[in-house]
């Protein structure tokens, strides 16, 4: 009895916008200060977790908001990473200038693949995106400019205001800032006119169209914005690793990102962040599992879909 009343009081307390802001600020403060107290290994893992947060939030726009299954999301991430990698290492372009190019390229890729296929049934879309992801990876493996199977090496580290971003802590903050930005953009999109249109299309495509929502255009927005997130993450991934290879962008990578979205509950920002962290932390905590990792992920995904399709932290139904 006492427990339940305390629980309601916590959720009551969380309801006003002001109190939520307090929680968010505390969490942001913890995320900002954590590198000061942890060792390099933990820092690396956390950086990776923020990186996956960006990717998962990007895919969440496609899968969670618009309800489209994209099985080739790693392709957008690859386009971003390779554009930056090629421009900096082969043409000596400044890293910061490559970002708009890389983002445009991945958005263009989203447009090319999404434009014609979004008219199709959703399961066809899934297989087309899967094929597209494989095509991008095979092209990267077979072209000279992408460095073939061994990939690109020696991508320069960027510098900002004379500070070269080279240490782990620098990239922690870079990815943290990007993740916060991604959260902010996702949050603003969720409740925007476009966000509501996505939700409508997801729940009932025909009714949405009857209400005057351009079905294909709305889906295409989701696709291109999702691609943009992947492109940005790819740019920074390339300079963080200084080397990229086609095997980073396999089908399993796309599935992993999708798992992050499904795990936490499709469409819900805190859920997706939790999902991304679970994705990265789980194999680190259970080191002994080794090759069983993907098997366990598969079983977890199956169990979630069968018994709790709304994820660990489901989205509250918005009252209309």
């Amino acid at each position, binding site marked *: 009895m006492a427990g339940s009343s305390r629980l309601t009081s916590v959720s009551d307390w969380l309801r006003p916008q002001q109190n939520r802001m307090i929680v968010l600020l505390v969490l942001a403060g913890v995320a900002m200060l954590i590198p000061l107290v942890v060792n390099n290994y933990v820092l690396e893992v956390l950086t990776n977790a923020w990186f996956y947060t960006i990717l998962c939030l990007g895919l969440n726009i496609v*899968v969670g908001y618009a*309800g*489209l*299954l994209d*099985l080739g999301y790693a392709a957008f991430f690859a386009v971003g990473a390779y554009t930056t990698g090629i421009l900096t290492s082969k043409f000596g372009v400044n890293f910061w200038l490559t970002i708009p190019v890389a983002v445009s390229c991945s958005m263009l890729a989203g447009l090319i*693949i999404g434009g*014609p*296929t979004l008219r*199709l049934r*959703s*399961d*066809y879309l*899934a*297989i*087309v995106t*899967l*094929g*597209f992801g*494989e*095509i991008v990876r*095979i*092209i990267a*493996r*077979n072209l000279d400019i992408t460095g073939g199977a061994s990939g690109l090496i020696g991508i320069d580290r960027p510098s900002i205001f004379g500070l070269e971003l080279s240490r782990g802590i620098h990239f922690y903050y870079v990815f943290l800032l990007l993740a916060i930005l991604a959260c902010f953009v996702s949050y603003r999109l969720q409740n925007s006119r476009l966000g509501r249109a996505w939700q409508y299309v997801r729940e009932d495509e*025909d009714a949405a169209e009857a209400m005057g929502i351009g079905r294909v255009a709305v889906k295409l927005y989701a696709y291109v914005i999702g691609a943009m997130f992947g492109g940005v993450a790819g740019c920074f991934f390339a300079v963080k690793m200084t080397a990229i290879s086609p095997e980073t962008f396999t*089908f399993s990578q796309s*599935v992993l990102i*999708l798992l992050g979205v*499904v795990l936490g509950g*499709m469409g819900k920002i805190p859920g997706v962040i939790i999902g991304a962290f679970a994705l990265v932390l789980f194999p680190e905590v259970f080191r002994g599992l080794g*090759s*069983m990792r*993907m*098997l366990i*992920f*598969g*079983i977890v*995904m*199956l169990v979630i*879909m*069968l018994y709790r*399709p709304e994820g660990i932290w489901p989205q509250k139904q918005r009252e209309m």
Partner: protein
Amino acid sequence: MSNLDIILQQLANGLILGSFYALVALGYTMVYGIIKLLNFAHGDLYMVGGFVGFLVLSLISGLMGSSWAGILCSMVFSMLAVGLLGVIIQRIAYVPMLRAPRLSILITALAVSMVLSNGVMAITDGEYLAFNTDLGYEGLDLGNVFISYTQLVLVVSASLLMIILYLFVHKTLYGKAMRAIAIDQDACRLMGINVNRIIALTFFIGSSLAAAAGVMAGVYYGSLHFFMGFVIGLKAFTAAVIGGIGSIPGAMLGGLVLGLLEAFGTQIPFIGSEWKDVFSFGLLILLLIFKPTGLLGKTEIERM
């Protein structure tokens, strides 16, 4: 080699590749036709089929040898076992999801595929397994064109399986029920057809055909790997779409067309075999954009 020889040789290669694709594509198309589910795990059933066949063959090779008698025996066993596995998967994973949104069932199918492929990976440590048989390398030597007896037997047995399937679907009562369910499930229920049992039967047949293809591919290529189901799953889906998804003759035709296209595609100058997959996936994408109903498919009118 003259041009004609190259054409004949690629024709032979394309036919054998195409018959594997056709066998796997049949399962996709049957399941899709009956419950509108894109079964991502289907390619993995092919892979599991290959491994079960390998296991049985190594167990019985002392008794029956690893020549055709042994291979046939292990293929039949593998077909039964994987067919059963398909039914179990359908019962556990798909039946509860049939009323769920399409996105959920697709993700469920993906999860099943992950469990199967990574389960086999955990068992085999991700190693390649050599599928050793006692089949020789003799064959028909037609001038510059060489077709081994193994290839010949595989193509003939694949065609036999397809003919049996065609007769089953078109001449028996169960086949009639299957075709009826594809048209209208609720009406079938009213007519006293046990819909769930027929769906399970469809899964059984589709999965066992994939297993047969898996064993044949193991015999043909001589090796097995846990990831081999992924690419063939995608290719077989392409084949099913080429022929028109949901159509059984379409899947057979699509498989052969894709196999031949791939075999001849590698002969086009500047397109080496490393681009083979790009070629067929690109074809899939173009096809879905311009002619999603495929060669033999019917235009589908979606009901609201």
